[in-house]
């Protein structure tokens, strides 16, 4: 099956809410061998002017990859997950992700380029923090490209 060229320009609206917990920040920080006290110790985070524990710089990948899954699992996309290779990744932080944030991600397919028998697909997740009044603020933009290898690659 080949990649659907009409994917370009497609968007997937914000779906489930991701609640950023302190223990998840600590777990993710340990998993990437991050050692800064602001990931682990509430007082250390507050001393730096933060409301709560600060997520590591790549933490948003959890939310971004959940958003990407909507595209990869979309039967209409033609993407075979077992042939996917992560080609590049970028995080733009408009403000840090902090424990207690309630996040949603809007996924945009910004580029589909065929390469040999496969395709390079660039997606962008706009990650928003929800407020109690249901307004939302853009906290991070993540951009990633995946290479879907063709059958002969």
């Amino acid at each position, binding site marked *: 099956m080949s990649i659907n060229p009409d994917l370009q320009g497609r968007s997937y609206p914000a779906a489930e809410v991701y609640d950023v917990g302190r223990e998840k920040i600590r777990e993710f920080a340990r*998993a990437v061998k*991050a*050692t800064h006290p602001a990931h682990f110790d509430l007082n250390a985070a507050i001393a730096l002017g933060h409301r709560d524990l600060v997520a*590591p*710089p*790549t933490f948003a990948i*959890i939310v971004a990859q959940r958003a990407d899954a909507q595209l990869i699992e979309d039967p209409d996309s033609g993407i075979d997950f077992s042939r996917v290779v992560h080609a590049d990744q970028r*995080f733009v932080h408009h403000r840090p992700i902090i424990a207690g944030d309630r996040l949603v991600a809007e996924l945009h397919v910004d580029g589909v380029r065929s390469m040999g028998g496969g395709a390079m697909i660039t997606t962008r997740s706009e990650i928003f923090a929800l407020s109690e009044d249901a307004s939302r603020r853009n906290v991070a933009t993540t951009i990633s490209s995946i290479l879907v290898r063709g059958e002969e690659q």
Partner: protein
Amino acid sequence: MTPSFTDVTIGQALGSRTIGVTRQDLVKYAGASGDFNPIHWNESFATGVGLPGVIAHGMFTMGAAVQLVTDWAGDPAAIVDFQTRFTKPVPVTDTTGTDEPGASIEVTGAVGALDEDAKTARVDLTVVSGGQKVLMKAQAVVRLG
């Protein structure tokens, strides 16, 4: 404390860091991130899709490499932009039951550019494993004091 813009110069070195990686580290990263692709924990699956063996998540390498920048920045929130290309896989051999890592990742960093208006520095990371550059264009932008 976050370095002051006036104290930072282009070419300034951030030092280096060596990260030992085990199969257990990859299982931990899979659980923490939710990325359970079996190429990161199952040898026969990995070789079956043409890889040399189990490889580290690119996002593990990216996430671990940035610690050098966090240490320098003094506050993880000062890293406002971080990007890389994944160029080579990092094979991690099975050393379960020993004290040896299954792979070693060497990270060095230096200031590559300064932005006077934004008061930011771009740190360029060099990330090598097994004698090969495994990340390219690994750049973190740090908001300075």
